[in-house]
């Protein structure tokens, strides 16, 4: 009986702490996931972003001007 009560108490405590820590864990996991996605997006998209911004700025340049050697 005492052992069952003790085990119930431990289970209750474990659940409570798990709930509060799980929110923190969720927040950490979410920030890690978003940072990883941001890193991949920057890695692939930074140079194309610069090229698109440059091509749109005042005299508009076309793609073949980028590729030609002159």
């Amino acid at each position, binding site marked *: 009986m005492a052992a069952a009560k003790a085990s119930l108490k431990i289970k209750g405590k474990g659940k409570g702490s798990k709930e509060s820590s799980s929110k923190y864990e969720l927040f950490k996991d979410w920030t890690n996931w978003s940072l990883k996605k941001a*890193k991949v997006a*920057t*890695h692939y998209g*930074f*140079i194309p*972003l*610069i*090229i698109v*911004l*440059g*091509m749109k*700025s*005042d*005299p508009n*340049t076309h793609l073949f*001007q*980028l590729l030609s050697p002159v």
Partner: protein
Amino acid sequence: MADLFPPLATAQVDAKTKVDEKVDYSNLPCPVPYDEVHREAYMSLKAENFEGFRFDFSKGLNQKFSLSHSVMMGPTEVPSQSPDTTIKIPVAHYEFGANYFDPKLMLVGRVMTDGRLNARLKADLSDKLILKANAQLTGEPHMSHSVFNFDYMGKDYRAQLQLGNNALVGATYIQSVTPRLSLGGEVFWAGVPRKSGLGYAARYETDQMVASAQVASTGNVVMNYVQKISEKVSLATDFVYNYFSRDVVASVGYDYILRQSRIRGKVDSNGVTSALLEERLSMGLNFLLSAEIDHKKKDYKFGFGLTVG
């Protein structure tokens, strides 16, 4: 080429008139940023020597937009077990870059054939607040670094907050104390090797010379002095001492800015002699020659290159 010391000269024009009359402490010039406290000394003493062949081609498409292609072939050093031997592996790479320059936004990106991206961003968020970001991203996990700096420029002070990945936080502050003297300090905390550090810097400049010193809690003490002999010549000397590891290095360097060329060199107390020559062959065509001779380690590095555009 004549714009060697532009901020120094303007600060000195203000400083001279003020020193002649009386120091107006409420109207001091804005100091140089904390990272650039040793700027003039490092122009001669920390020139970019390279080894091998280098070719840079830069094509401007627009007022604001340009592309660059760069090829580098040469031996690269690999860290070796014993400090006496240097291991070099021949390597060749091609780097593609794109730059976008706007009055308020500057973006610079460089990507190599192995997928490494080097990205820099500088944005003027307001009149006095500047955001700078610098990132090196690789495909390998945990090998990427990025640093974000927020710079605030006040009337006679500058403050900077720095945030980096792996929980790096730093702050620097520099203040003009008299028209010629500015003092600054920095504090940083790095999460991965759990350590924090503190540092102080001082810089005294006049029309003809700049003297600066920096002390850090990592044990580094740096002192340097630059004398501008004429419009074309300046000499610099540097003393670095680490009071934990007892390493001492002293060096003397020169910087000659001539009409068609610029030559910088230095001699070190470690037995290293180096020089870098940049010669303008014609409009837009620059020829580079670099040499670095380490007599103690018997490591000889010679390089040549061409820059177009």
